[in-house]
């Protein structure tokens, strides 16, 4: 069955300790619903970033902070196993409602393709 990344975006200055309790409860309830439906492979929130860039001399430069200079970053994600994109979209709609946030869906592929 195809797998999908459902990623939630947060502003740079988001502070998880200031998150409303009702939001936390709704995200928890959505996770319970996904588990009951058997679609949830993995779920998480993300912490601070470090970036690693290849250098022309073959070395790797490590810096603090996210790789992309944007005002929003992925704050967490679900990996869901769904029949198709429509089912992933239906779960992502619930993700928008529960998190009060913005969500992106990407299909995951595997090399080599699993049997």
């Amino acid at each position: 069955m195809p797998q999908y990344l459902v990623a939630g975006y947060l502003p740079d200055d988001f502070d998880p300790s200031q998150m409303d309790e009702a939001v936390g409860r709704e995200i928890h309830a959505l996770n319970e619903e996904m588990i009951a439906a058997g679609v949830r492979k993995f779920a998480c929130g993300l912490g601070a970033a470090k970036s690693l860039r290849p250098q022309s001399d073959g070395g790797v430069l490590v810096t603090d902070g996210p790789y992309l200079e944007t005002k929003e970053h992925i704050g967490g994600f679900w990996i869901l196993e769904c029949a198709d994109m429509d089912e992933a979209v239906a779960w992502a709609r619930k993700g928008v409602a529960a998190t009060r946030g913005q969500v992106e869906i990407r299909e995951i592929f595997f090399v080599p393709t699993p049997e």
Partner: protein
Amino acid sequence: MPQYLIAIQHPEDYDPSLEGEAMIRDIAALNEEMDAAGARFFAGGLESARHARSLRKQPGGGVSITDGPYLEAKEHVGGFWILDCADLDEALAWGRKAVVACRVPVEVRAFLRIRPKRESPGRGGSA
């Protein structure tokens, strides 16, 4: 053990069909090395960002769905590993190998372990 996301960054016009055999071998070897070390929890590539769908909350409470990535950026996450590592240094060591194998920049982020005021959503099933 803490878990870390190692996300590889691709230009928006990246075409995985143009990846060379040497690079594919290097990535396969890195995956095997991660498996042998017991570090690899999950790994997957992502269909290119132009195939993404983005869902935005609307002021009226509705949700709009559009084709394409959420961020208007010239690069997007092209694939990722979820690794079990003792600490950030170990995750960065794997990240360095990922930069070399994939020939692209990567971003390393720890997963949050403390969920204040509520129960942790926990970890998903094994991938």
